[in-house]
């Protein structure tokens, strides 16, 4: 039963076995990112259109063929309206649409010498070609941005009689800008996809934990019942009951350990989970706060070892089935761990005798180990029993 539960608990193997790889091209999060980008582009299209129309109207006396120029501007207005509608739905963002978008931008560049004459300075579409370039970058990433940029730049430069410094600069920016925007879109989509996968994993883990809780609760109920009835029936049934009790404890510890897995930093350990391994039904009771108590892994392990040594001592000096209690209290800067038994106490002088004989008694060993952690260990003993009080700072001594 224990192994079955462990299978349910571990998440990594299940994930890699059942989840297909999620593509950053098609994942819903990537599409959502792209939708957002194209919405922004729709706004940009209008801005560059207004800019282009205004410039062409302002320089209308530059046109050799004013009617042809007006037709070009009209084409830009119509295409902008159509493109805004067409790009709004991801299903319409086909190669045909993007191809047409770029082709129209290129065509408007090509007709510029016709309508404006060979010695033109500014092309008819001007910055309006940016819209097609960015659409390519968003849809086909850095490769698309680079291709569209190269095409637009090449056509633009090849039409000019004289290439000025600023013409070259603009063309260079088109090429570089297309590639950079494409690369950024890709990164955004990949990040959104990664986050979507992580969120889905978290939701799955939570659901798995919820199911595991239901399963575990059922198993625990039965184990507790077997344990209880077994004890009442006696004989072989009592042995069954004892085994059920062991499994119950083990399962409960696993559940706690599982709950702690997601919360703590890698180099720290939840001392509550560690200490719960010491619990033994009927003999050792472990009391802790209800929240995780994070300690550096080395400190937690050492404290656990010390607590175990204290309990071993109880079994040795008081009895195999002697009851003992472990209490953990957590404060902001330190933890207090006490281990108590109801035994006859340590006879006066025994510890001193051990020290005088040159033997390093258990008590000294415990004190030494706690001192190494920068803490203190106090021993109270009498006819009421023996009690260790260990106080250890939460940040381990660096020594």
């Amino acid at each position, binding site marked *: 039963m224990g192994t079955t539960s462990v299978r349910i608990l571990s998440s990594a193997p299940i994930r890699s076995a059942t989840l297909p790889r999620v593509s950053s091209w098609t994942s819903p999060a990537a599409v959502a990112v792209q939708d957002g980008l194209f919405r922004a582009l729709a706004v940009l299209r209008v801005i560059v259109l207004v800019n282009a129309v205004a410039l062409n109207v302002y320089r209308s006396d530059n046109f050799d063929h004013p009617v042809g120029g007006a037709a070009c501007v009209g084409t830009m207005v119509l295409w902008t309206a159509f493109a805004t509608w067409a790009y709004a739905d991801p299903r319409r963002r086909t190669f045909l649409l993007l191809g047409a978008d770029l082709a129209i931008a290129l065509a408007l560049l090509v007709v510029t010498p016709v309508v404006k004459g060979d010695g033109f300075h500014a092309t008819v579409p001007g910055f309006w070609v940016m819209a097609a370039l960015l659409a390519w970058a968003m849809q086909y990433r850095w490769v698309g941005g680079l291709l569209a940029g190269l095409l637009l730049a090449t056509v633009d430069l090849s039409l000019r009689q004289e290439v000025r410094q600023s013409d070259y600069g603009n063309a260079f920016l088109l090429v570089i800008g297309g590639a950079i925007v494409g690369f950024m879109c890709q990164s955004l989509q990949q990040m959104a996809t990664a986050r979507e996968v992580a969120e889905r994993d978290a939701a799955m883990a939570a659901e798995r934990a919820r199911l595991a809780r239901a399963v575990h609760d059922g198993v625990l*109920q039965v184990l507790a019942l077997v344990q209880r009835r077994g004890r009442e029936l006696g004989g072989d049934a009592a042995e069954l009951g004892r085994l059920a009790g062991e499994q119950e404890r083990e399962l409960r510890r696993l*559940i706690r350990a599982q709950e702690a897995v997601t919360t703590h930093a890698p180099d720290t350990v939840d001392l509550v989970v560690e200490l719960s391994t010491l619990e033994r039904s009927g003999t050792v*009771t*472990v009391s802790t*706060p*209800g*929240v995780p108590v994070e300690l550096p892994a080395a400190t937690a392990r050492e404290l656990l070892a010390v607590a175990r040594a204290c309990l071993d001592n109880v079994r040795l000096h008081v009895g195999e089935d002697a009851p003992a*209690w472990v*209490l953990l*209290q957590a404060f902001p800067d330190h933890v207090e761990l006490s281990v108590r038994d109801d035994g006859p106490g340590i006879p006066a002088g025994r510890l001193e005798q051990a020290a005088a004989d040159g033997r390093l008694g258990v008590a000294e060993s415990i004190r030494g180990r706690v001192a190494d952690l920068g803490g203190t260990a106090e021993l109270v003993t009498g006819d009421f029993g023996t009690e260790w009080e260990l106080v250890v700072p939460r940040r381990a001594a660096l020594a």
Partner: protein
Amino acid sequence: MTEPEAPLRVMVVDDHPLWRDAVERDLVAAGLDVVAVAADGREALARFPAARPEVVVLDLQIPAPDGVAVTAEIVRQDPDVRVLVLSASGEHADVLAAVKAGATGYLVKSASREELLSAVRRVAQGDPVFTAGLAGLVLGEFQRISDAPTTDPAEPSLTDRETEVLKMVAKGLSYRQIAERLVLSHRTVQNHVQNTLTKLQMHNRVELTRYAIERGLDAD
């Protein structure tokens, strides 16, 4: 322990039939009157008003509404009812939530029949049934409250003596042993333990009220 003339009226809430029957059988065999049983939270809340039990023995992991919600609701309806929580998983958060909601006792399900009967009787008399584990949880909770950056002076906190007593309970000392060590009467020790529970429940109400005010839910 003086037995009242009328048998103690108990209600058992557990979704596992095997368990419910076992607990019911044990209680009846000991001469208690099981006035109602319920398999889930809805049944429990439906049957509670008519059954008028003195003690509700309640499993925390039941179909909705869960044990914590049931505890809060029946204690609201009848502040004199005593709730003894049984939990198989012993989940810290659940147990603490139930105690905050008004439960006065907690037992793991693997406890023996004698432990269960004794717990039911003690809870009926108004004694909180504290396991060492529960005391550790409550201690931790008060520590957490006092560590919180915004400590309201009006908020209930434990006296030094209450902390001392609670710590001893968490270390497994019986009330008798604590009374001996601190030279107090058994009753005084019980009162201290009772006070810690009352304060924890009070703190819970303060927290809920503050939450409601912050969320603007008090505006009616």
